[in-house]
């Protein structure tokens, strides 16, 4: 569903993905076309096995399409080498996972600092920025705590701070509230919404949860590897 008016931040054209396991091959995506403008907040929905996470991985440069093209801000990424993709991800994408994926042996601050290790920033600047990101998600006071000492919601906030710290253009969230209770999930989703509205972060969020999807500007539905529908949420409209 390309947007014909403005230049999109993300443009997918005819994207197919086939996984081959031994003798068997499985087609997960079938010619997906999708445009996402800068500043958008999209909820990518669909049943299990519909290809949501695969699509997210392709947009995030974690995987390569079998056919078609993926362009982010006009740059096609499907042909980039592994090292080029890594560098591109470090500069452009912030990832938020369902299970937070924090490194257990590092404090919250050290976890948030990880993406900055790939920059040439001096140690004191890295620390300052990590604390700032933690402050943004309301966790500055827990900076020295290790993940095991934090609640699920707090861990996800650290994960969001880690995704934000390098100021990426795009936040990719894979079921960010899938492991949280309703109340905490609402807090996290409110935080994402605020980031989108006040900081202009473009967000793509995979979710099964219709309530979570309501926090997005748009909902895009995927089924059996094909985009089957799109809706704009009223609150954002």
């Amino acid at each position, binding site marked *: 569903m390309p947007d014909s008016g403005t230049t999109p931040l993300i443009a997918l054209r005819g994207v197919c993905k086939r996984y081959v396991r031994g003798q068997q091959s499985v087609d997960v995506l079938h010619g997906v076309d999708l445009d996402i403008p800068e500043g958008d907040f999209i909820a990518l929905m669909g049943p299990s096995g519909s290809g949501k996470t695969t699509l997210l*991985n392709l947009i*995030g440069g*974690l*995987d390569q399409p079998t056919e078609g093209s993926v362009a982010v801000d006009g740059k096609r990424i499907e042909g980039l080498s*592994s*090292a080029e993709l*890594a*560098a591109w*991800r*470090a*500069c452009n994408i912030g*990832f938020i*996972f369902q*299970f937070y*994926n924090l*490194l*257990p*042996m*590092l404090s919250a601050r*050290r976890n948030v600092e*990880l*993406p900055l*290790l*790939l920059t040439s920033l001096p*140690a004191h600047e890295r620390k300052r920025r990590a604390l700032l990101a933690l402050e943004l998600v309301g966790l500055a006071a827990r900076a020295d705590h290790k993940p095991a000492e934090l609640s699920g919601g707090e861990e996800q906030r650290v994960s969001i701070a*880690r995704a934000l710290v390098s100021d990426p253009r795009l936040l990719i969230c894979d079921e960010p509230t899938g492991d949280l209770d309703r109340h905490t999930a609402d807090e996290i989703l409110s935080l994402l919404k605020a980031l989108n509205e006040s900081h202009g972060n473009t967000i793509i969020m995979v979710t099964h949860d219709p309530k979570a999807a309501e926090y997005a500007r748009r909902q895009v539905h995927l089924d059996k590897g094909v985009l089957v529908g799109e809706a704009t949420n009223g609150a954002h409209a």
Partner: protein
Amino acid sequence: MRFFSLVWASLLRRKTRTFLTLLSIVTAFLLFGFLDAVRVVFTQGSAQAGVDRLITTSRISFIQPLPLAYRERILAVPGVATLAHANWFGGIYQDRRNFFANIAVSPAEYLAIHPEIALSDGAYEAFLSRRTGALVGRELARKHGWAIGDRIPLQATLWPHKSGSTTWTFEIVGLMQAGDERARKFENQMLFRYDYFDEGRMSGQGTAGWYIVKVRDPAESTRVALAIDALFRNSAAETRSQSEKEFNLAFARQFGDVGLIARAIMAAVFFTLLLVTGHTMAQGVRERTAELAVLKTLGFDNGLILRLVLAESMLMVLIGGLTGLSLASLTLPLFKTFGAQLPPLRIAAESWVAGFGIMLGLGLVVGLPPAVRAMRLGITEALAER
């Protein structure tokens, strides 16, 4: 250095396992330090010998005596500057465990031919004037609490006194110090006068254990050695002349090929260490599959992941290895087992270099397979396993 905290934290992820692995590395390098010090002493102690000195012994064995009458004939060989003679006494002080070299020497000649021996004040004159006089190494005197003027009884094992007694008594008239590195062995020896020994022994008068021959020109050593041996060919006591280096080496090899034994033990130890450390590293990386995938997701490229895992194994091996070698270096001076004839045990520079090389090699071999595995890790597959 930016990534040091990450590498360090990964290493401390499982503290007990890392500690136990470190302990095995420390133990292996401690053992390496000990064994290599022994190997160096036994194989390179000879390198400290004088280059201008030949040792002439019986061709059969250096414990077979040579006639004293050879003395003048050797002196007449062109290229020979001077010579001294000596005899192994093999006396025991109180207990066999107190072993040290005690040697009967022709006093003035022996000291003249060994300028590297530094004597305490008045020792030289006292040694030449007192027939029962003995020079003892400073280290040996310190070990037994001896002082100048003390009378030291030695129990003869090879040379009983002609009176029938096996006890020989010597008076300490001076201390020997190492004037330079070559003389370190003298700090654990005792020298006494050959004339006192020869007159007092029950048998073997008129013979010497070996001759120390000083040549005028070190470049002529081989020719002089051949000339000396040619002089006594087909006689009842044929000779074998060799450089002091070769002689010391042959002496050390009485104990077996220590270098080979040491190397064999070290190879077994390091092979075991390789398996233990390799298993630890492999398990450590396997457990962190998802974490490594997260790092890749954040933008850590494959090369960086490879280097981080390698740095982890290198750091672990270097910490353990340097601790082990340092411990060996600190504790070796407490062992003076070989001090009698060979230099004291210590970690030589070449052992540090070899040890460091082994650490780097071990770190690389142990770290490379898991590092390559981590490098090849597919992000989506690894995250999906979680």
